[in-house]
């Protein structure tokens, strides 16, 4: 099954409550996928320092120190600037004042086995195996400030129950994808993308979707066009939520196999697998509530 809950907060006054609101949503979709979970939070000042790139690495016990990173980035870092390494729950965050690509290259040298779960200047990705509410608690979701966030509870089908196989998949700067469903032709699309030079971290079908979107965005598509193109290339069942630095989009496969419901007020727009995840949002009683139509891309900008 899998469960999705995503929230974009338009009203700045509600942004300090983003984590708490997402937590109430996540709680209601746990039944849909209790084996592992993932969260992506945008614009949290404790997680993403201004003017810095942050990499979210899987695991809390990586042998990586700020000194290692600084040494590798010496030629890029401004005089006196230092990198930081912090552990939040099961996630290691490495931040530095260089582009995310440079930071990723340095981290790959400093800690060759490290898996990058998220990257960018605006987003932090936290994912782990276990009960989704425990994963959320270990990362301190309650009370987190943010502008938008997505969460996913997974019932694994296409690849193993691992932190790496959990969603979201964040494979380009500030881009995240969560997926309910399965892509049936992911192996052939993966082969095609590899041929074009795209690298992969996991055997997961959703990663193929994320890599495909990142590839299309690189080719110049806007998010909406990239999702329309995804519908032409990837076959299978899907409800997808994609977030970028300043937008959120929802799309379902053309026969709408997987559920989705959207609620929108002046203060926020929320998407979830089921209404019950939206039931506790402030002002839900006056929200515009609708099911996204099959094959149609819905997008909202911050």
């Amino acid at each position: 099954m899998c469960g999705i809950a995503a929230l974009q907060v338009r009203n700045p006054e509600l942004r300090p409550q983003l984590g708490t609101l997402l937590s109430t949503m996540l709680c209601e979709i746990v039944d849909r996928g209790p084996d592992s979970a993932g969260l992506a939070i945008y614009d949290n000042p404790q997680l993403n320092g201004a003017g810095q790139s942050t990499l979210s690495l899987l695991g809390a016990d990586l042998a990586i120190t700020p000194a290692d990173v600084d040494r590798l980035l010496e030629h890029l870092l401004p005089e006196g600037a230092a990198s930081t390494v912090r552990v939040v729950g099961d996630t290691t965050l490495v931040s530095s004042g260089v582009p995310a690509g440079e930071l990723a290259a340095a981290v790959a040298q400093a800690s060759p086995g490290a898996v990058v779960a998220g990257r960018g200047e605006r987003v932090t990705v936290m994912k782990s195996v276990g009960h989704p509410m425990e994963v959320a608690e270990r990362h301190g979701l309650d009370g987190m400030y943010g502008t938008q966030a997505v969460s996913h509870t997974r019932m694994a089908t296409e690849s193993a129950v691992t932190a790496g196989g959990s969603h979201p998949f964040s494979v380009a700067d500030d881009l995240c994808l969560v997926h309910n469903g399965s892509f049936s032709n992911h192996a052939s699309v993966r082969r095609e993308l590899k041929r074009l030079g795209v690298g992969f971290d996991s055997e997961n079908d959703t990663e193929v979707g994320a890599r495909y979107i990142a590839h299309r965005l690189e080719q110049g598509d806007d998010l909406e066009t990239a999702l329309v193109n995804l519908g032409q290339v990837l076959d299978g069942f899907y409800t997808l939520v994609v977030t970028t630095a300043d937008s959120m989009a929802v799309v379902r496969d053309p026969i709408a196999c997987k559920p989705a419901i959207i609620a929108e007020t002046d203060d926020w727009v929320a998407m979830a697998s089921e209404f019950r995840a939206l039931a506790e949002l402030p002002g839900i009683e006056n929200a515009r509530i609708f099911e996204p139509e099959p094959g149609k891309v819905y997008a909202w900008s911050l």
Partner: protein
Amino acid sequence: MTTTLDSLPAQGPRHAGGTARVFDLKADGVRDLNRAIHQAPAGESFTVENPSGKHSLAVGVNAGIDVEINGHAGYYAAGMNQGGRIAIRGNAGVGVAENMMSGTVHVTGDASQAAGATAHGGLLVIDGNASARCGISMKGVDIVVGGSIGHMSAFMAQAGRLVVCGDAGDALGDSIYEARLYVKGTVASLGADCVAKAMRPEHLAELGELLRAAGRGDDPADFTRYGSARTLYNFHVDNSSAY
């Protein structure tokens, strides 16, 4: 006789000036609600507050009782209803009134996918829209939708009537058997073996009765009837190479 929203006897305490049993799902459990509903004799009334999209509300009603759900219901609300009168004052999730046998289910908002799936009898009224696969494999139920319905509705519909006051999505009535479909607006596309048919006097009469049963004032003359062309009923030897 067509079941109507008002035709079932309503003798519960609520209607005799008394009170209904109230389940507030902020505190009470869904299992407790359903257990009480299963044990209630005909004539009892129940009110459900704060449903908050919970699943399986008022499932398995087996007596002439009244249930009023004040808010949005989750999956499979009012499933397998037999003789009850169930009102959902809000939206309903996937599979509302699935496999209903008799009685009425009234959704004042929208319904998600597979509304009235496989239902054998009774009346399902949805004042808003219903999404994909409305009335899939319906086996005798009457469904009246005030708004529009999604794709693949009335797929393999065997018996009963589906009335749509708005538009229908793609592949309406694919592989339909003997259910009758009435659509007021446009049909995006018809499924295999589903065709438009003439509105004869008996169809205008039964549609008028269904609209009245649902408390609606639409004019039957504005609707088009769709049904089976019956070309898939028998095996054609020309198709043998496909097997």
